[in-house]
């Protein structure tokens, strides 16, 4: 994991974040993601992971709390924060009637990426994600995996410093999932920060620099795999065992 200078702001800093939909979905969450790390957010269904990511991406307004992205206050300056953020949801929402290059052209326009830069980046991303042979087809006939790849290309075309992904591997076949994982690891190696949720614990074990476990809208554990093993006192345990143990402990403490 690349270490950032002590003075550099964290990629993401969340303090006292709250959001309620009748009942609390996110309940006083504090979280810090360091610049250049691959941070994975784990949690059972309804734990508040997606709500948290949507608030960070500016898609939901928090009831309370603060969000800073590379030092930019995302609530006071949402445009500044969005400029350096890329968002990808689990449900790829793209325009059926556009081709992948047209879609990327549109996204590049929204993020005001200069034309020549956007063109070369788009071609590179399409090649990287294996979409080049389909570049002249409209997305309406694409499989779920291909749609997810187009959406991922859209999230990366403006080279965001913070890449936020909500269950990006849901429904992908092994080949497509491997490709997406490779692209994300490459981005982290290039200095980007990745914040991602997933239910696939094997990914967390293999890819994450740090893991945060969230339950009932609160962060109940955080650290590297070794940190979590030490905390649960289960040497040699798999992440699945530790995850279930942490969630059970939290439920028991309620």
């Amino acid at each position: 994991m690349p270490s950032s200078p002590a003075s550099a702001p964290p990629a993401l800093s969340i303090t006292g974040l709250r959001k309620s939909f009748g009942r609390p979905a996110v309940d006083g969450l504090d979280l810090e993601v360091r610049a250049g790390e691959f941070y994975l957010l784990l949690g059972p269904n309804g734990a508040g992971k997606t709500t948290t990511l949507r608030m960070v991406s500016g898609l939901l307004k928090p009831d309370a709390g603060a969000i800073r992205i590379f030092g930019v206050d995302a609530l006071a300056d949402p445009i500044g924060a969005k400029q350096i953020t890329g968002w990808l949801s689990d449900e790829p929402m793209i325009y059926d009637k556009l081709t992948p290059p047209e879609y990327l052209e549109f996204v590049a326009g929204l993020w005001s990426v200069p034309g020549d830069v956007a063109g070369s980046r788009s071609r590179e991303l399409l090649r990287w994600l294996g979409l080049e042979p389909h570049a002249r087809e409209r997305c309406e006939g694409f499989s779920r995996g291909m749609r997810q790849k187009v959406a991922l290309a859209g999230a990366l075309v403006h080279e965001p410093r913070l890449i936020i992904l909500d269950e990006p591997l849901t429904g992908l076949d092994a080949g497509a999932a491997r490709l997406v994982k490779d692209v994300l690891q490459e981005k982290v190696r290039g200095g980007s920060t990745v914040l991602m949720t997933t239910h696939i614990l094997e990914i967390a074990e293999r890819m994450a620099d740090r893991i945060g476990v969230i339950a009932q809208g609160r962060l109940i554990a955080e650290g590297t795999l070794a940190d979590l093993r030490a905390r649960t006192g289960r040497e040699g345990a798999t992440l699945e065992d530790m995850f279930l143990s942490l969630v059970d402990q939290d439920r028991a403490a309620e």
Partner: protein
Amino acid sequence: MNAIASLVWFARHERRLAWRDALSMMTAGRPDRERRAWIWLCAFAIALHVIAYLLVRNFVSQQMQADLPTLIAVTASILLSGSAMLSQAMESVTRTFYSRSDLELILSAPVKAERLFAVRIGAMALSAALMSILLMGPFINVLIWRDGWQWLSAYGVLIAVSLVTTSLAVAITIKLFQWIGPRRTRVAAQITAAIVGGVFVIGLQTAAMFSSGTLQRLSVLQSETVLAHAPAPDSPVWWPAAAALGNGRDLFFVLAASLLVFLAVTARYAPRFAGYVLAASSVSEISRPAAGAHRFKVLSPAASLRRKEQLLILRDPWLISQSLMQLLYLSPPALLLWHNYGKAGGAVVLVPVLVMTAGQLAGGLAWLTISGEDAPDLVQSAPVTPGRLLRAKAEAVMQCIGIVFFPFIAVLLFVSRQQAFYAAAGIGAAALSSIAIQLWFRSQAKRSQFRRRHTSSRIATLAEALISIAWAGTGAVAVSGNSLWPFSAGFALFLLLCVRWLSPSRLS
């Protein structure tokens, strides 16, 4: 399960789906609105009966006879409702082919799919009949009340027309499928449905316009030329009309013939439906390669949004067919403009039609761009202020309106600069009002739900229509040279303010 039992079983399944679908349309998908929806429906039915009474009472007092002028008028009404039913049935057949919903489940089950398709064709006929009964029923009820029970036979004629039009719709769509293939059929059938729906009324208006210089549809039907060339009153051509007027023998023949046609078409085409559905579903898997390599051109955020909206509208055949329908209604006034070139009278008819159409077209387009955003997360997560996003979407709509209505304004400019100015101002005001209403009542929806956009907010739908009418009226008053037009414009603005006051965006 034997054939009859499985037909009944499928019919019950279809009835349950259709009922829930209708309920969901009435309540905009909110079960808590069911009671309110029923109250609205009852109020609507009462209002229609009142309107029907006001329109029909004069005919009743004239003691309607089955003479030639009456037979012509009733036949025209049957054809009018028949063209609408045919259009609706063609839409339903196309939807059955191309929307997957439960078809994969049914086609993979060990049942004879033709029974389901036979039931579905029957359901289409039923829904076409119900739709017509909803609109024509109040008139028939008033006639029964004021003139006698013989008018009950009009319901029989509506059912016969629905059977024939559904059979025609099935046959036309399947023939299109065979002639031009599954890919082109979708677009062709949708456009044909749109044209069929309006062609009869537009044809009548055009004929009326050339014969009497007005848009009064019925005037041409009662002209001496038509009466001289029409078949004699005892001709079979008039059987449906005579049946509607209470002739029991003609009603029997009309019903029997339509039922025979329907059964023959169902028996012939239901067994082939499964094959066509499979062919249609494989089409949607293949996307169409664009011509030539893509030349990357990045625009500003606002220009990107406008371009995206325009591309999506241009590439949506269904939407184009719907817009074409609205534009088709412009053809009679356009002909009127051409016919009355240089005379002042034409613009009095033309300008309100232009203004009204602009308001309705802008409302539909604004819904698509504002509420029907297919990638809301992407657009909201972009570093662009919400105000700028919405402004770009509104600009995209106004550009489309400009492209559609510019030719009319250009022609009007040659007739009279003042009339062209009033028309342009009215079109702009109506379009902007509709966009504003869509902004105030916006709620996230899928673009594919365009057909149901009216159910999400009835206030918005009603307001859009009322304000378009108000601007159309203002245009007519202004073009006729009446100095009271500012009052009419003020009334339109007052209505717009009331809508703003009622809108959820003000309350939130």
